[in-house]
């Protein structure tokens, strides 16, 4: 067979080699202002939470009865004070730590556990698949908030219980996505080719399967972070999360709720913080999904 060495006349010469996948993703992300802004906002929020001990002007739990519910812009308290006279800016900075931990940990746990269970169920199939997936279906019998309340409500308040109950909420979701992605990829010809060429189960999983299912799983997990933040703060709002006097955005919203008739702006601030954080995560995951060209 003759080997074509020269391009036909009318073919356009290729200016440069095609970009690798991740370079292309980065190239697309760099041209997406909404995602970049969301990313920058998130970096600021995370830094503010990490550096709270140095950034906060006051001790977040030290209040003063004489300075209760000072308005935004009060001298010495830029964002006012809460119902116990504690500095709002300091409490918001410290509160971000709790909310971020409670919002990210369950999704990370779900990512690890859910991927393993889902890929296993999808790849092995048969009875294992039925067993795993039907068990996961049971958790789908509850709307997310209700499942979290059921478990947290029984276990009682506290950060560890919140993390546990939210992890249980998110694991089944990741399992579903991981399983369906695995089943899809498993049916592709190159997996059959790898198997025919004598590859073992583990190398196929590592090199061929995981590489192709991790993208959709990661993107899905990133969409769940904002929901997890809202749920975590919501549990504290109901009195099931972090216990007082700790600073946490949902808890602050709950305790300040009674004060809206005295000062309407300050009680709304923790909610603004939750809103901005969850929106930034949503925009970031949307941008990530578009840039990685994953349809979900």
């Amino acid at each position, binding site marked *: 067979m003759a080997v074509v060495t020269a391009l036909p006349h009318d073919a356009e010469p290729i200016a440069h080699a095609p970009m690798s996948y991740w370079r292309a993703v980065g190239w697309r992300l760099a041209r997406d202002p909404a995602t970049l802004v969301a990313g920058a906002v998130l970096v600021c929020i995370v830094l503010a939470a990490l550096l709270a001990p140095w950034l906060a002007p006051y001790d977040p739990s030290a209040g003063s009865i004489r300075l209760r519910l000072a308005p935004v812009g009060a001298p010495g308290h830029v964002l006012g004070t809460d119902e116990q006279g504690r500095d709002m800016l300091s409490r918001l900075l410290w509160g971000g730590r709790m909310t971020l931990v409670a919002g990210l940990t369950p999704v990370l746990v779900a990512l690890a556990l859910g991927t393993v269970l889902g890929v296993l169920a999808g790849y092995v199939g048969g009875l294992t698949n039925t067993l795993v997936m039907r068990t996961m279906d049971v958790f789908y019998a509850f709307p997310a908030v*209700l499942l979290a*309340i059921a478990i947290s409500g*029984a276990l009682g308040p506290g950060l560890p219980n919140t993390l546990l109950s939210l992890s249980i909420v998110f694991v089944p979701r990741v399992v579903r996505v991981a399983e369906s992605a695995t089943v899809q990829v498993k049916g592709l010809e190159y997996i059959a080719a790898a198997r025919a060429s004598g590859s073992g189960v583990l190398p196929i999983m590592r090199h061929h399967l995981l590489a192709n299912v991790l993208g959709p799983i990661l993107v899905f997990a990133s969409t769940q972070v904002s929901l997890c933040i809202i749920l975590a703060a919501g549990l504290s709002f109901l009195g099931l999360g972090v216990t007082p006097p700790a600073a946490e955005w949902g808890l602050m919203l709950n305790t300040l709720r009674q004060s809206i008739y005295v000062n309407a702006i300050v009680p709304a601030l923790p909610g603004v913080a939750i809103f901005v954080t969850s929106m930034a995560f949503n925009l970031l995951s949307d941008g990530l999904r578009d840039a990685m060209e994953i349809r979900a």
Partner: protein
Amino acid sequence: MWTYAGRRLLLAIPTLLGASIIVFAMVHLAPGDPIAAVMPAESSQAEIEATKKAYGFDKPLAVQYLVWLGRVAQGDLGRSIATRRAVILDVRDSLANSLVLALSSSLLAFGIGTALGLLAAFRQGRWLDKAASAIAVIGVSVPHYWAGIILIIVFSVWLNWLPAMGAADGGGPLAYLRHMTLPTVALALIPLGVITRVVRSAALDVLNQEFVLALRAKGLAARRVFTHVVKNSAPQIFTVLGLQFGFQLGGSVLVEAVFSWPGTGYLLNLAIFQRDIPVLQGVILVLATFFVLLNLAVDLLQTLVDPRIARH
């Protein structure tokens, strides 16, 4: 179609049983003696013995579960620790209020979300599309309990237009409507975001099909093309509506707490506050059952509208 419906019905049974196991387990998840989880601390010895017998705490877990399930099947959800009232009565009284709120907020979100999503799809890339996308992102990002507080601040504290708390018992239908306005709006935000998004992408999928091109090519008026697109994206739109309605039932917990709306969410909130495990169990079991049955109904209706689904 009928075999699919039968299979789907059968699949709902293990799901419901599984859900009941989770609810049953709540008593044993609670720290300490399970008897303390279902009895007030000041109960007499005779009461404790009676409850122990009713629950069968001395028997193996599997037997306890079956005994409990048997009582639940007869409508006995236990007694509240705080009020000693039968849980089923409390749930019955509050469920109607929650259903009203779930229905009104779903309808509001459905009306606005469908209109926005369709308009956005037909004006793809224009400002209207961008506005709809922004509303969609805000809708799914906003903590709805906080939105409720903001609504109270604006419409009750500042403008004094609408009441902030309760459901105006005995105040007549107009007072009831005024009370449910703010919680309805707060609850509608999340489904509004989701529905706008789904409707937009469903309509875009249809718009990109060749038959739409053919309709346009033969000179069909834009309004008639619109009708075709709406009809073809209807199955997806109704599915998302049904699912969102289900989420509203459970998701209203936080909003009901904010507005002291006397529904299941408020009941849950009180139960959490008083660590009233039997009430928690009862409300969650009833809501989960509703949720599973609703999802089942959505699935079955979907196959009725679009028989292709049953073949998958």
